[in-house]
């Protein structure tokens, strides 16, 4: 078998592959309405992908229990189809193409993490299919002239800005010094970079309120954080802000405790209430402050309903925001399909643009997609503080607060 003989059947092979790749024909035909998602159920972000699936599933089940969606006078059930993209940015978009072309999905729900959603949104924008984003908070996902990508998650910047708003509010109550010395570290990912932008945006021109004494990045999934924490100790700040994902947060805060640091307020961005965090750090997470896109303590009807349903089905307590925002995003999409009374992409898109859910579980109680922020919701987050006995308490904004924050010395 010489190499030449192999070259000879190259055209044959091309044909064979072509046949192998022949896509199956559209899966439509019955009266179900399909919506699809490509989620990171394995790989780097597998710890989160499952939450999204559960949240989406819950919303779809509720809609079906209520009789489905009425299109042209006929009530039709909704089917959610989910594929695993292995947290891989090149697989993810191809699965969305498949959901549209092969499975006949009329609208799409997002995956999770900004880089993956960034890669995904090209598909709905090219094809003109409504895409509901619950998993990528970055503003850069929503390109100029965006018509198809709707964001149910407010930008990462709002995590940072709400945290600083809270600090300013405490300053106004004379509970925090002015200027406040802030040490900030951020993970060098899209998320961390936008957190940093959010902090800078607020601090700029507020020299009387804030003094930024440390501004440094670290790599995601670092193997140790002690030297960074020693650096934080050396700048003698009043407040320590960090933006980290779970594994880094755990290591960083462990080093923080080991090195005996203490600040008036400590926040790791959105980290803090997760179950795994208390599993690993116990008492040491008490009084950590975090900014949340959603928290189970929110006093809204819809939020309580969600917590009840979710915990009955998947066990609880639900401490992460992911399934709640996913549920809400899917609910909004289904509502829009109902409002449109059609499965035409343009009709669904226009219904989404006009949609306003007044009974939302998100902070502020309202879900809508404003044109001026390129169809991404821009609401404030809530600031919660971990309680020594477990659970969290909302400390900001004042109208939802359950009590004052505990501020260290």
């Amino acid at each position, binding site marked *: 078998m010489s190499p030449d003989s192999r070259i000879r059947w190259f055209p044959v092979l091309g044909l064979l592959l072509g046949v192998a790749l022949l896509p199956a024909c559209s899966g439509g035909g019955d009266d179900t309405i399909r919506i699809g998602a490509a989620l990171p159920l394995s790989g780097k972000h*597998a710890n989160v992908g499952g939450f999204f699936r559960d949240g989406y599933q819950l919303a779809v089940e509720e809609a079906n229990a209520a009789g489905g969606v009425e299109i042209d006078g006929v009530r039709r059930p909704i089917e959610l189809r989910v594929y695993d993209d292995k947290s891989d940015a090149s697989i993810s978009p191809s699965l969305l193409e498949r959901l549209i072309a092969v499975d006949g999905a009329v609208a799409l729900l997002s995956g999770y993490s900004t880089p993956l959603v960034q890669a995904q949104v090209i598909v709905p924008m090219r094809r003109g299919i409504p895409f509901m984003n619950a998993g990528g908070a970055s503003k850069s996902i929503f390109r100029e002239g965006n018509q198809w990508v709707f964001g149910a998650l407010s930008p990462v910047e709002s995590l940072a800005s709400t945290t600083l708003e809270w600090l300013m509010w405490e300053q106004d109550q004379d509970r925090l010094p002015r200027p406040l010395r802030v040490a900030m570290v951020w993970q060098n990912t899209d998320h961390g970079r936008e957190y940093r932008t959010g902090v800078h945006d607020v601090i700029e021109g507020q020299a009387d309120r804030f003094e930024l004494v440390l501004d440094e990045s670290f790599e995601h999934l670092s193997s140790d954080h002690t*030297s960074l924490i020693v650096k934080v100790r050396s700048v003698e700040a009043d407040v320590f802000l960090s933006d980290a994902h779970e594994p880094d947060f755990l290591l960083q805060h462990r080093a923080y405790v080991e090195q005996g640091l203490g600040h008036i307020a400590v926040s790791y961005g959105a980290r803090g209430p997760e179950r795994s965090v208390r599993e690993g750090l116990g008492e040491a997470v008490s009084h950590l402050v975090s900014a949340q896109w959603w928290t189970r303590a929110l006093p809204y009807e819809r939020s309580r309903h969600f917590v009840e349903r979710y915990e009955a089905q998947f066990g609880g307590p639900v401490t992460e925001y992911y399934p709640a925002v996913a549920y809400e995003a899917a609910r909004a999409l289904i509502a829009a399909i109902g409002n449109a009374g059609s499965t035409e992409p343009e009709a669904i898109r226009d219904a989404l643009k006009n949609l306003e859910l007044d009974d939302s579980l998100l902070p502020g109680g309202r879900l809508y997609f404003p044109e001026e922020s390129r169809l991404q919701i821009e609401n404030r987050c809530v600031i919660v503080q971990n309680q020594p006995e477990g659970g969290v308490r909302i400390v900001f904004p004042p109208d939802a607060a359950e009590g004052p924050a505990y501020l260290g010395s």
Partner: protein
Amino acid sequence: MVDLLSVLASGILVGTVYAYMAYGLGLIYGVLRVVNLAHGAFLTLGVYVTWWLNTTFGMDPLVSILITVPLGFALGATVERTLVFRLRDSPPVTTLLLLFGVWLIVRNALYLIFGGADRSLLTSYSLESLAVGPLTLSIPRLIVSAFSLLGFVVLALMLKRTWSGLALRAVAQDREAAALSGVPVNRVWAVAFGIGSALAMSAGSLMSLFYSVTPEFGARFLLKSFCVVVLGGLTNIGGILVAGIGLGIAEDLTAFYIHTGYRDVVSFLVLTAALVMRRADSD
């Protein structure tokens, strides 16, 4: 000054962990000339078994080493007997990929059993630290460092003083000659793979004291283990210990004095530079 000392101390403590997690990789390479891509699987498995024993029975992670070591040995020897053994005469890269397959299967099994969420455990001494002059040293890290040194001593003694150690070294030096002089090479291979895996799993037990784990846990430490093993000379247990500590210190100094974001660049650059420079004795 205090900062410098803190950073150095942290570097040493982290470095001993690097060393411990790399012993097994080095031993397996030394004896079988196989790059064990399933190393990450055994590390991860070690953390999960420890986590499970701790959350279910309240077993201390250090006690669970008594379980992870024999379990690791059994699993490793089984993998060698059933899979690696069949490729003893193939080019090394096929074994490497075979073991990658094993890693995929283990990862999948972990997803099915434990899910993808981060898991971590807490012991009474998890967050304790010891004041030594101006320094504060974390107790769990000190314990792990002690285990790392202990592991080194036990391994070195075993290799030098016991008959199996002798056989391991003989096969590592020259497989054919060892076989001719009556060393049961097949069994030695299985034993070496078993010990290497036992070391990796017990490293997982120790790492559970400060790391959280997902099924992807092994990936980030596999690369680091490679660095340490290569820097230490691939087959030299003492070299691995020194390399681990050296790497830990270099990383922490870089993170502190240059930029935190660059700590991993150091390890990879040092790795490549060391490889290229020592090519004289690499064949």
